[in-house]
């Protein structure tokens, strides 16, 4: 499946469109996406910070997902670095 990962906060600057397309096996889980994004970041992003990704969560448009959750069928995901609203 093709997963479209929207980038926010400190990740946003890594890509002009603030998103990354990754190919993952059907039925992939959040943990798989995390691994794929780490690999992608390590090879494509000059200032990529793996420690920040490890503190980041993944979410659909409606909810934050856990590591064992299967990715939604539409493949639309977001990576959420630690939040600092308010």
């Amino acid at each position, binding site marked *: 499946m093709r997963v479209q990962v929207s980038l926010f906060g400190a990740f946003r600057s890594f890509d002009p469109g603030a998103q990354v397309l990754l190919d993952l096996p059907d039925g992939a889980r959040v943990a798989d996406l995390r691994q794929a994004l780490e690999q992608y970041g390590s090879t494509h992003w000059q200032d990529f910070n793996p420690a920040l990704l490890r503190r980041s969560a993944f979410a659909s448009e409606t909810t934050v997902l856990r590591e064992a959750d299967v990715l939604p069928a539409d493949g639309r995901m977001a990576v959420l670095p630690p939040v600092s609203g*308010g």
Partner: protein
Amino acid sequence: MDRHHCAVVDIVEGPLDPAAALDFVSDPGFGGITLFVGRVRDLNHGRVVTGVSYDMFVPLALNGFREIAARADGDFGPKLKLYIAHAKGRLAVGDLAVVVAAGTPHRDEAFRACRQVIEAVKHTSPIWKQEHYEDGDSVWSEGCSLCGDEHGHAGH
């Protein structure tokens, strides 16, 4: 729910409006209204701040605001009125970043609901703050991780 107003306001559409928040949570049956306003400070960790950019995952943020409001309703309802609005975009010093208001029959619930909501907004909403400094530098703030414990840590 029409007793809960949840909004994200792009700064280019205009500033957040505390008066509208007070109006929304008012009710002839309410004796207590508590309002919190978060503003952009001119100084953070000793650095002179010239502005703040708020990045936000809007649909998830709005969904989160509604969940936060529903939780407060369970804790302080069933009459509780709530107003939650967060700014988006590039704010200047003094601009309003967030407005939360709670109206209830008695003041204790208004204070506790308002506090609970602003803490939840700060610790769980998919919102990111980038501070701009007078020397031209910009830094994304350290924040609360949403991994595992959705409530994050209490440090910010």
